[in-house]
C-alpha cells in the first residue's frame, strides 16, 4: 500500500519565551492513518498538536522554527489560517459545547464558512451527528441547549461539530480524559471508522488507548521524538529503552 505523506514536520523548534518545548523534531503523518502521540506531561505533545492548526499563534511568546507542511503546503507561510483550521479540525480534552442549541453547535462552523442554505445545513448536521454516533440520542433534542447533554454526549457533539466543516485531518487532544469508559469506547469506535476519510492525530496520556486505536505511535520525551513506529511494534518491542520504561510504567 502506497502511503501519502499528509503532514510533514522537519526540524521543528518551538519555544515560549526562553522555554524550549520542541527540539529538532521531525515527524511524518500519513494519509488516513491514526497516529497517536504518547509521552509524559511537558513532553511537547499538545504543543506539537497545536502547531498543526496554528493554535499557538495566540501566545505572544510563541516562537517557531522549522518547516511544517500539510498537503505539501508550508502552513507557517502566509496562508489563510481560517481555511487551515477548517481543513485541520481539533477536538479538545474537555467537552467544550458552545453556549447554544445542539443544532447550532454543529451548524456553527458551517455558518462561519458562509453556508446559509437551511437544507444544506440540516443535512450536514444530521450526517455529522450520525458519524459521531450521536444522532439517535439527540435527534429529538436538536433545539435543546447543548449544555444539557451528558459529558460523553457533549464530547461527541464536539466531534460532530468538527466533522461538519468537512476537515481532512482531525487532531485530538486527550479527547477521552474526562469521559467514562462507555463514552470512550464510542469515540474510539468512531475514530477507527473515520480512517476511511480522515487522517487523525491523537494525543493521549492513556497508553492503552493508543494501543487500541492507533496505527502508529510516536513517543515524545522532553520535547524530542524518541521513536515512532507501528503501534504493535512500539508496544511490544520498542527500540529505545526510554520508550520501554514509559510504556511499562516505570516512569511518567
Amino acid at each position, binding site marked *: 500500500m502506497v502511503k501519502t505523506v499528509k503532514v510533514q514536520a522537519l526540524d521543528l523548534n518551538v519555544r515560549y519565551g526562553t522555554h524550549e518545548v520542541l527540539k529538532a523534531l521531525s515527524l511524518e503523518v500519513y494519509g488516513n492513518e491514526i497516529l497517536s502521540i504518547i509521552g509524559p506531561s511537558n513532553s511537547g505533545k499538545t504543543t506539537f498538536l497545536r502547531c498543526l492548526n496554528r493554535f499557538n499563534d495566540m501566545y505572544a511568546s510563541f516562537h517557531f522554527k522549522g518547516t511544517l507542511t500539510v498537503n505539501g503546503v508550508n502552513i507557517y507561510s502566509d496562508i489563510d489560517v481560517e481555511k*487551515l483550521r477548517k481543513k485541520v479540525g481539533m477536538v479538545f480534552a474537555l467537552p467544550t459545547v458552545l453556549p447554544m442549541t445542539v443544532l447550532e453547535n454543529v451548524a456553527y462552523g458551517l455558518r462561519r464558512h458562509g453556508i446559509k442554505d437551511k437544507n444544506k445545513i440540516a443535512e450536514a448536521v444530521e450526517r455529522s451527528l450520525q458519524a459521531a454516533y450521536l444522532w439517535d440520542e439527540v435527534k429529538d433534542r436538536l433545539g435543546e441547549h447543548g449544555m444539557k447533554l451528558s459529558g460523553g454526549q457533549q464530547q461527541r457533539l464536539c466531534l460532530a461539530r468538527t466533522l461538519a466543516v468537512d476537515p481532512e485531518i482531525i487532531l485530538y487532544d486527550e479527547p477521552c480524559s474526562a469521559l467514562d469508559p462507555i463514552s470512550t469506547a464510542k469515540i474510539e469506535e468512531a475514530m477507527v471508522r473515520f480512517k476511511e476519510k480522515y487522517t487523525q492525530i491523537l494525543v493521549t496520556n492513556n497508553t492503552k488507548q493508543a494501543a487500541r486505536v492507533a496505527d502508529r505511535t510516536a513517543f515524545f520525551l522532553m520535547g524530542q521524538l524518541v521513536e515512532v513506529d507501528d503501534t504493535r511494534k512500539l508496544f511490544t518491542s520498542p527500540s529505545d529503552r526510554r520508550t520501554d520504561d514509559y510504556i511499562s510504567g516505570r516512569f511518567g
Partner: protein
Amino acid sequence: MQKSFSQKRLQEWIIERCIYMSGIASIIFVCLIFLFLAKEGFSLFKNISIFDFLLGQKWYPISTPPFFGILSLIVGSLYVTLGATVIAVPIGIASAVYISEVAPPRVREILKSGIEVLAAIPSVVLGFIGMMTLVPWVKNTFHLSTGLTAFSGALMLGFMAMPTIVSIAEDALNAVPKRYKEAALALGATRWQSIWRVILPAASSGIVAAVMLGIGRVIGETMAVMMITGNAARIPDNIFQPVRTLTATVAAEMGETVRGSDHYYSLFAIGIVLFIITFCINLIADFAVHRKAK
C-alpha cells in the same frame, strides 16, 4: 474545660449576631428610607391628584395657584437618559470587548486604569468641565442660542456611565471560559466571528446588567446635569433644547421650600418616582444576571 467551651459558644453567638445585624442593616436602611420618602411624599396627594402630578405639564410650584405637574421633568430625565444610553452603551461595550479580547496586555492595563480614573472623577468636576468646554462647543457646532441642552447633558452623562458599563461588561466577558473562544477558532472562525457569535452571547447577561447599572447611574446623576442641561421645566421639542431633570429639580429647589408645604411634599414625591425607576432598573439587571445562572 467546660467553662472554656461555653465561653467559645458565647463568642460564636456574639459574632453570629453581629454579622446578622450587619447583614440586615442594609435592608432596614432601605425600608426606613422608603418609609420616610413615602410618608413625606404621599402627603402631597391629599391636595393634588396623582394624575395631575404625574401627567401635568406645568411645574410652577411657587406661583399662585401652584402647579405640580412633573411630566416635563420626567421627559427631561428620559431625554437625557436615553441620549446618554445611546452614546454610552455601544462605546462602552465595544471598549470592553477591546480591553478583554483584543488589546495586548500592556494596552489593557493602561486602559483599565484609565477607566478607573474616569470613574473616580467627581460628578461636579465633570459638570464643571462640561460647562466650560462641552456647552460652548455644542452651542457653536449646532448654531443654537444656548449650549445648555439635553444633548449636552446626554453627552456628559454618557461619559459618566461609560466606566460602569465598561468595567462590568469587561468582567462578564472575562468570565466567559477561554475554551469557548478556542472551540470557535478551531472550527475556522475568525477572531471577530468568535467574539460576535460566541463570546458576546455567552456574556450577554452580564452585559445587560452592565447596561442597566450604567443607566441607573445616569438617572440618579444630579450635579452634572443640573450644571449643563439648562433646567427649563418644559417639554422639549427636540434634544437640542434645555430640559430639567427630576434629580436637578429636587437638588435645586429643596433649599427654598417651606417645610410642610405642598412644594416640599412634591419634591419628596419626585424622590419616590426616582426610587421606583431605579428600583425597576435594578430589578431588570438582577433578572438578567440570574436568568443565565440557572
